[in-house]
């Protein structure tokens, strides 16, 4: 036998209490992992933004369109490599819960400015050639089992009616945090139909995506673009893609902050639960600690016994919680509307944080019982009635 064996035996002395505490820590770690994953995924779109891309939108609000005619004017500004645009289409694919981004885009330039959307030359050529074609992200293709040549029908809401598209390309995300759930189709296809059905809405785009040569000049170029359209009926606001995306994320800032806060509150609560377990355990063993001290066991040994027991429980709960985080996060992804999150994965830093939190809980929960056990004199320990 050694002291480690005594630690393990002590940990399992009250099986129900230990099991409930381990389950509590496990649930806390899973909740922490899930909340942190949502927060990370939410913020990762900002990290994925390219440094050499600017976004120009209507100055009043993103929801107001800009004239198509701005494209050539913007392109003429020094330092701009390419200009593309996109328009939020909305619509429903089969079921309103099937959520993914659908954009009417400039088919000629979109893949030149969005280089992280990787598509073969043949598929790009086919897409450009056919007016009612579309390109979808690989994750959409996998999720809905769509192949090249298949038809996709959208039920329009912002642009009412039945919209039929033929899939001519499937792009692959270049990076882990690149959105692989977009559906892109010809802006001209939509615009031509609007000329017939709703002429007042033609010639409008949602926002311009501008590729610049030198990211260091983004402020200067943004100023030039906005200056170009100052005092016009559609003034612009140009900012880096990162700032533009940050604006979206900030809109949900309160929820994200609350989730962040909650993830740490959960850790705090479970720390109290484990501390309570350890205080009860140490209190029940007051007499045993007195015996051990009498036999010659030092303060170091007593600290080891209590800290060890606390760590065993915390690590078991943390370990099982982390092991279960992957399937639970996977299940959560399935439960939310399809495509709600463009990508959803547990970051290694989340696991490191969760395990560190479990370790910290183990240490902190043992401080008070250790202090009490060390402070209690041997003679008082023998008199203790638990």
């Amino acid at each position, binding site marked *: *036998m*050694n*002291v480690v*064996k*005594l630690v393990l*035996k*002590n940990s*399992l*002395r009250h099986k129900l209490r230990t099991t409930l505490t381990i389950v509590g820590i496990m649930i806390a770690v899973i909740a922490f992992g899930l909340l942190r994953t949502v927060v990370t995924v939410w913020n990762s779109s900002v990290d994925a933004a390219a440094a050499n891309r600017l976004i120009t939108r209507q100055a009043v609000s993103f929801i107001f369109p800009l004239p198509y005619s701005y494209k050539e004017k913007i392109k003429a500004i020094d330092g701009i490599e390419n200009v593309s645009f996109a328009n939020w289409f909305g619509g429903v694919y089969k079921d309103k819960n099937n959520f993914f981004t659908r954009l009417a885009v400039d088919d000629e330039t979109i893949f030149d400015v969005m280089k992280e959307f990787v598509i073969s030359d043949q598929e790009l050529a086919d897409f450009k050639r056919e007016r009612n074609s579309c390109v979808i992200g690989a994750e959409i293709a996998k999720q809905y089992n769509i192949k090249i040549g298949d038809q996709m029908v959208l039920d329009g809401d912002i642009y009412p009616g039945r919209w039929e598209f033929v899939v001519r390309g499937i792009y692959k995300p270049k990076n882990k945090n690149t959105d692989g759930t977009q559906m892109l189709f010809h802006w001209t296809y939509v615009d031509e139909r609007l000329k017939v059905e709703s002429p007042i809405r033609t010639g409008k785009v949602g926002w311009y995506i501008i590729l610049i040569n030198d990211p260091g000049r983004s402020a200067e170029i943004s100023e030039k673009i906005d200056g170009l359209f100052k005092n016009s009926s559609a003034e612009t606001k140009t900012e880096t893609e990162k700032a533009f995306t940050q604006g979206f994320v900030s809109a949900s800032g309160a929820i994200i902050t609350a989730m962040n806060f909650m993830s740490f509150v959960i850790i705090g609560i479970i720390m109290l639960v484990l501390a309570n377990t350890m205080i009860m355990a140490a209190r029940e063993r007051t*007499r*045993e600690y007195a*015996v*051990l*001290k*009498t*036999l*010659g*066991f*030092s*303060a170091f040994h007593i600290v080891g016994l209590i800290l060890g027991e606390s760590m065993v429980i915390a690590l078991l709960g943390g370990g099982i919680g982390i092991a279960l985080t992957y399937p639970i996060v996977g299940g959560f992804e399935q439960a939310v509307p399809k495509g709600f999150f463009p990508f959803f994965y547990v970051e290694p830093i989340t696991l490191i944080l969760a395990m560190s939190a479990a370790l910290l809980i183990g240490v902190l929960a043992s401080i008070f019982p250790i202090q009490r056990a060390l402070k209690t*004199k*041997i*003679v008082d320990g*023998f008199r203790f009635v638990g």
Partner: protein
Amino acid sequence: MASLISVQNVSKSYWRDKLEIPVLNNITIDVEEGEFLALMGPSGSGKTTLLNLIAGIDKPSKGKIIVNGTDISNLGESALAKWRANNVGFIFQFYNLIPVLTAFENVELPLLLTKLSKSQRRKQVETALNLVGLGDRMDHYPKQLSGGQEQRVAIARAIVTDPVLLVADEPTGDLDRTSAEEILTLMERLNKEFQKTIIMVTHDPHAAESAHKLQHLEKGDLVGA
């Protein structure tokens, strides 16, 4: 015989809030090596306190206690813990075995503080348990043993490190007459055959008859044999 324990002018007081409660008053006593001393007296007379001071689990308020050449009244907590591990075996009224450990593991506990190898520890534990007649109960947990057997495991734990001094606080206080007799016989054997110096606190005059020497305490004073 040489004096193993020398208690010189020892007083002990406890404090309850600001009130000083004297428990032992200027006690002086010598215990010779190989002696079996019984301390008797009514409840609150200070006999357990005196035993605790001699065993190094409490410190005197005044005076000096020298055991086996070491002045233990001046030792720090850590040094005192080491000294106890090397010099004293403890036998308690309520056995104080660790319930999650087997008889073998309970007896092995003090040896975990030594540098003995696993096989050496096993040998010593088996010897101690065989000596108390529990060689066939090594894997039993305390709850699987009778009171008398538990006390014998506690005695095995007390002697496994071969200490010079055994202290026993009411070792038969929680046992029936037959079991108590067995424990006393065992303690006499440890004293006679293995020359262990034993100090035993007891209320029981019959138990005290096992000792060579008897000392009475009353209200913190030694009142003679």
